[in-house]
């Protein structure tokens, strides 16, 4: 089960993201791939992972993946449910969160994210949903994990709008912010991490069966590759079985559900 044929790119992406979460961490989760990764971690190596959703549900244990950030099961299984103003003030801004997930339509070499517009703000070609909780997650959590599918339209030289800050337009943009910022960008092709000094994202791990040239081709800037490029350890049998079982349960519960990163 560890051959490259045995799992899909989105499965390795989810499994790799899940592995970043240490047991006992307090994790601010969004819907879609982050929720899948966090719940996978919770069900495998991190049973004491604390899952917090921005709907105000703290310490949830959903049996199936929620379809929305405010599914009833999140409230029913939570240790505590608080208001939205409180989740952002006392919990996120209050520095109670170890790790947060973000995604976006565009990312640049300093891990700045755009989920607002493609094109100019006043006359966009594409109006995206907007910031949501992202700007303050980016600023306040201990570390940020970014999950984003790898293609040239997403990995751009310059984001059209800076919705949430990675390391700023020139890599020096975190002064005054508490968290460490993005520590890993997990894609369906590999993992990028910021250079310790320059904060520029480098390819540090490549998923099994993916060519470096493919990653470079799908990146819209001149992506640096780490001297010690590793190959992502493939999903274990347990990880794959748990993920697939979770997806199966979710599909049974929500007939309209499709794997968010699939």
């Amino acid at each position: 089960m560890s051959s490259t044929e045995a799992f899909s790119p989105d499965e390795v992406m989810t499994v790799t993201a899940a592995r970043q979460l240490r047991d006992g961490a307090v994790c601010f989760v969004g819907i879609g791939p982050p929720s899948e990764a966090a719940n996978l971690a919770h069900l495998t190596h991190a049973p004491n992972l604390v899952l917090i959703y921005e709907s105000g549900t703290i310490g949830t244990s959903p049996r199936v993946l929620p379809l929305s950030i405010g599914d009833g099961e999140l409230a029913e299984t939570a240790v505590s449910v608080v208001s939205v103003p409180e989740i952002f003030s006392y919990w996120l801004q209050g520095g109670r969160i170890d790790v947060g997930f973000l995604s976006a339509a565009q990312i640049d070499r300093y891990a700045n994210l755009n989920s607002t517009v493609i094109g100019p703000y006043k006359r966009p070609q594409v109006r995206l949903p907007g910031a949501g909780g992202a700007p303050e997650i980016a600023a306040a959590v201990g570390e940020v994990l970014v999950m984003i599918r790898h293609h040239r339209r997403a990995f751009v030289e310059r984001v059209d709008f800076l919705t949430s800050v990675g390391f700023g337009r020139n890599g020096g943009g975190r002064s005054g912010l508490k968290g460490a910022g993005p520590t890993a960008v997990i894609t369906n092709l590999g993992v990028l991490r910021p250079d310790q000094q320059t904060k520029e994202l480098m390819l540090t791990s490549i998923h099994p069966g993916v060519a470096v040239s493919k990653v470079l081709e799908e990146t819209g800037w001149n992506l640096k590759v780490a001297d010690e490029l590793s190959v992502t350890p493939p999903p274990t049998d347990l990880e794959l079985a748990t993920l697939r079982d979770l997806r199966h349960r979710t599909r049974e519960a929500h007939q309209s559900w499709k794997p968010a990163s699939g």
Partner: protein
Amino acid sequence: MAEITTLAEAVAEFIHDGDVIAMEGFTHLIPFAAGHEVIRQGRRDLTLCRLTPDLIYDQLIGAGCVRKLVFSWGGNPGVGSLHRFRDAVENGYPRSLEMEEHSHAGMAARYAAGAAGLPLGVLRAYAGTDLPAQTKSISSITCPFTGEELAAVAALRPDVTVIHAQQADWKGNVAFWGITGVQKEAVLAARHSIVTVEEVVDELVPHGPNHVVLPSFVVSAVAPVPQGCHPSYAMGYSSRENRFYLDWDRISADRGIFEEWLRRFVLETSDHIEYMELLDEATAQVGEARN
């Protein structure tokens, strides 16, 4: 003290053309029936405030009721775009849409400031982003104790806040529980408030997690509207109709299909009971057609 009335009367009395309106509900307890009634009564030039302007605001925007949107995340949760919202922003259809854009934290702080009778909320927000350059209601203050610069957001004080709750009692005290979002703050920040409820009960008793009670004297009108939050849900009363969110992607993607849907389901129904009956019929027909 809240009067117990009908939704149609409450909208007629409290919501006027040009008003600043907040219809809140975070995934849970979204006041759809009230949104439809605003469309039916033909309100125009509204400024609509909401953290997550999902389907309810897509419908109001598409119906031409809205001049300005104050928001932080405008999508169809778990599905994708809000096509009527995008059509208004990208193409000015059916009319151009002014925008005042924040993050969730900023919007929550704005309502909380309004509820607290303050002109501003102070928070750590927007750092390093392009939002402050676009949004006049974002500024900054300097902490007199530490010298730190912090974000300031202008208080948000809607003319009317509309929410859906599980219960009210006959005195007009309102109770809701589960995911309670920013509804308490949005009601307390507003001059008037309309609350649709699943039912009116003799006595409010604590229910479920995070039970919130709004005393009658901060509520203007209570209107019993069972399933008034469909396709959203009311914990203890109904489940989220995920299918509708998926269907909406198709309905709203095309101007003609949307306008036909709006005419048939909203403009030509007299109230939420008729709307739900028609929706059930249509769903049954689709079900048969699929079989």
